[in-house]
């Protein structure tokens, strides 16, 4: 067995260790530990990705001396490694970009706890990505939920704590349903390991035994994860949570946490239930419908919004709608498009949040559009970054958003029944995006003769600017040479089934 195969396990364990140790460190030290950790884990994931690409097949890693189905095991393929790598990079950039706000907004002496939370969050994300065992998935989903709640309320004012409560309530409903569905599935299959579960589910579906409980279990699991990842009707908690928490948290939550759940759902669809059986239960049509509704209503609420960050938050409701619409297509192409959109949206949305904070900083900390006038001149880097992000969201060519819309359309035209609604809603929501993002961009570039607020120089925000540039590069790379990424995704999905 090659040594590289240890890397997934190492990266999860390292994150846990770093989190545990950071809880005994001072703020600065915890920050350094966290940064190093993210660097190392990025390298490990990259190595895993290369390895899987070379061998061209996924590998299974037994956690302990007992083989599955008796012991735990984790599994790494191209898609897992790619996602893990991407998550690490995004998290690193988001933390760097929000660092200066963190020091302001979190009361001193508790910053180290923030890094503890992020370490454990990363570990849970990686575990969700790599796990091959449903119950491990459940445990780490809980870690994910709690640490996300911590990220929301670590900047302590009434809004955030209320948002945290709402978030907890919704996601506890979600995990309750998830757990119940999990137990039912266990009761029907007698396994907790994904691959064995899949065999048994296939057998049950073939024999038609326990048909109703099987469907109900699938529905429970799907609904639970939809609730946790804020699909349209369950998005009530989202705007406050993203809009008022500290900026790194907002970036991480919107681009990683919800995406982690969605990735878990993908994994369940492929590795536990089986794509065809999942397609046969009409639930994908429900997902499709809710996705479409989310695309429209999210954008509408974003247009109504008078506060930049809440606007961005609503737009991510719409984007999650895109992803579920991709699921709803029920085709490989749709799934590929969704996975690519997970990546591109992660890159874009965190960029938008980080840029927005730069803009509001030079506008006296107010997030209302009135104050933002001309902010693009006062903080050039943030302005440019925000413009790039908006263009990518609107689906301008050369940026990642365009490619994902292209893939969605490609998937849509292959599905005769859902082609028209999908394409029409795609067009409409694109135009709605254009309305509110372009409104904002024009806004921040509206010249004001005299501004109350000083413009910020490069020297003051070196890290920040570098982060923004990195984000922009990521976006453009995804937008211009998307082909290798898409190929990897296809390969990875093929490995799943």
């Amino acid at each position, binding site marked *: 067995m090659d040594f590289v195969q240890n890397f997934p396990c190492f990266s999860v364990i390292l994150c846990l260790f770093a989190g545990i140790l950071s809880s005994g460190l001072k703020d600065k030290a915890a920050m350094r530990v966290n940064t190093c950790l993210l660097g190392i884990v990025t390298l490990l994931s990259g190595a895993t990705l290369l390895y899987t690409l070379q061998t061209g097949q996924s590998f299974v890693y037994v956690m302990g001396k007992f083989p599955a189905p008796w012991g735990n095991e984790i599994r790494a393929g191209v898609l897992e490694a790619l996602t893990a790598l991407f998550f690490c990079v995004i998290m690193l950039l988001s933390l760097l970009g929000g660092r200066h706000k963190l020091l302001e907004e979190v009361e001193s002496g508790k910053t180290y706890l923030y890094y503890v939370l992020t370490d454990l969050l990363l570990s849970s994300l990686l575990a969700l990505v790599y796990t091959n065992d449903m119950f491990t998935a459940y445990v780490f989903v809980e870690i994910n939920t709690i640490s996300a709640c911590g990220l929301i309320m670590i900047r302590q004012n009434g809004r955030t704590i209320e948002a945290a409560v709402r978030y907890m309530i919704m996601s506890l409903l979600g995990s309750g349903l998830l757990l119940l569905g999990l137990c039912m599935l266990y009761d029907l299959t007698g396994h907790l390991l994904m691959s064995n579960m899949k065999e048994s589910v296939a057998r049950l579906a073939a024999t038609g035994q326990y048909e109703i409980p099987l469907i109900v279990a699938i529905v429970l699991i799907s609904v639970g994860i939809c609730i946790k990842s804020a699909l349209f009707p369950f998005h009530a908690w989202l705007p406050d949570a993203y809009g008022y928490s500290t900026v790194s948290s907002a970036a991480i939550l919107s681009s990683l946490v919800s995406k982690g759940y969605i990735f878990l759902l993908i994994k369940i669809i492929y590795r536990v239930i089986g794509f065809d059986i999942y397609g046969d239960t009409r639930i994908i049509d429900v997902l499709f419908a809710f996705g479409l509704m989310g695309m429209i209503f999210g954008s509408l609420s974003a247009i109504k919004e008078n506060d930049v960050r809440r606007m961005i938050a609503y737009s991510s409701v719409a984007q999650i709608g895109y992803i579920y619409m991709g699921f709803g297509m029920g085709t490989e192409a749709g799934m590929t498009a969704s996975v690519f959109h997970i990546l591109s949206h992660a890159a874009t949305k965190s960029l938008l949040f980080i840029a927005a904070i730069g803009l509001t900083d030079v506008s006296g900390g107010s997030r209302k559009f009135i104050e933002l006038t001309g902010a693009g001149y006062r903080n050039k880097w943030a302005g440019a970054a925000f413009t790039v992000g908006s263009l990518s969201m609107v689906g301008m060519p050369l940026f990642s958003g365009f490619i994902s819309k292209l893939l969605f359309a490609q998937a849509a035209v*292959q599905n005769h029944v859902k082609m028209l609604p999908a394409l029409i809603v795609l067009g409409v929501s694109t135009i709605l995006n254009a309305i509110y993002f*372009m409104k904002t961009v024009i806004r921040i570039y509206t010249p004001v003769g005299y501004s109350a607020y000083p413009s910020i120089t490069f020297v003051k925000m070196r890290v920040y600017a570098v982060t923004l540039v990195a984000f922009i590069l990521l976006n453009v790379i995804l937008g211009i040479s998307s082909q290798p990424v898409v190929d990897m995704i296809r390969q990875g999905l093929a490995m799943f089934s």
Partner: protein
Amino acid sequence: MYLILLSIFVPMAAGLCLLILPEKNIVRARLLSAVSMAYLLTAVLVTAALTRCYDVSYTLFHLTASLPVCFHIDETGVLFAVLTLIVFLCAGFFSFAYMKHEKKEKRYYGFYLIVFGVLNALCFAGNLITFYLFFEILTLTSMPLVLHNGSREAIMAGLKYLFYSLCGAYMALFGIYFIWKNSSTLAFTAGGVLHMTTGGNISGPNSLPGAAAGGNTAILLIAACACLLGFGVKAGMFPMHAWLPAAHPVAPAPASAALSAVIVKAGVLAVVRVVYYIFGPDFLRGSWVQTAWLTLTLLTVFMGSMLAYREPVLKKRLAYSTVSQLSYILFGLAVMNVTAVTGGLLHVLAHGFIKAVLFLVAGAIICTTGRTRVEELRGIGKEMPLTMWCYTIASLGLIGIPPTGGFISKWYLATGSLQSNTPAFAGIGPVFRWLGPVVLLVSALLTAGYLLPLTIHGFLPGADYDYAHLQKREPSPWMTVPIVILTVLSVLLGLFPNLLTDRIMGFVSTLM
């Protein structure tokens, strides 16, 4: 072959450099010299590209596996590139004098150069995706020209321009998806790609021509309609024309000259590309799409002229006239026979030169006298005769009085629509066959009605005009020379049309 890339990216790079340069401590003279250097360099490069690598195609990179970004120079590209080059040079040198009074010159020249590069890219684009890509970039980069003097109206106009263009572009994209599904390639090929496609089985984008015409003709027609409407937005076609009269007046005069002479022509180019290089006239001829298209264009021609007729502000009036004139071109393209299309393409050139002249003259007037409304301009001809003579000649051309370029193009348009024998005309045939020329004539009269009063009042202010305060104030040569050059060109176009018409006829007949 790198000449293509250079002619596209050199002006862009120059513009970016200008934008990045720090605002302060720039000597204006040095700035201007740098800009003019950029102009000339681009001019040389473009001409070199047009002569040296004609009919060469070059793939830059692949957006996705099936979507290369590639460039290819063909006749249509040459036509539009020449127009772009001439108008941009003239307007550019004109703006040296005009922009003296405006703030933020650097930003203006920067974006002006970038737009120049983007337009070259549009002319040289080798497939639909490349075209769409630069079409979007054109919208973004030309918007700063519109909202240059960040006044409230300017920002509103820019926002409106952006919104309309984006909506149009996405409508077009919606259509492109379907084309992409149904055709093996998106590369521009004379006569359309559909006949080589294999229509719509889900698995792969390829099957047999019969299938293309078979199962999803209806959906392809919808796609064509979407593309036409979407790109028609840029060309100010009726349902979505409202941005044009808003955007032109607020922009600086040379910018609006470039806008209505060239940038809106990008919409026309898009329509040409989609209809004659992607769908192919045979597919659309006689379909409901063609009928709707003809109706819209005629409607726009008439309505534009009417609006211009009752518009007091000079630049707005010119903008409305642009709306109507562009629809002349679109009408020619919609008729889909050789003569009419030739007329349309000729009118692209003629209208380009003429409208540039008119806007530059308006700019010169504003810049010297500061008057914008038509009724304020009595006796303007006495004050700046040379400019007003150019205006007069140009407006005669736009009306379509020989021997100017406008006459030739309109002649071809009218004869084309008369000799048109397409099934569509067979259907509601007689109507369109005589309706077309009639509308053209009526709107020509209207054109005379809204352009000539300025000349008349300008040269014959009437008895009560006090010649005492009259002083000659010709604008600086920076302004007059470009105007004269463009006027002369528009006249030459009318005097020796054959050079062009034969060539255009030649390649148009290959499209059919």
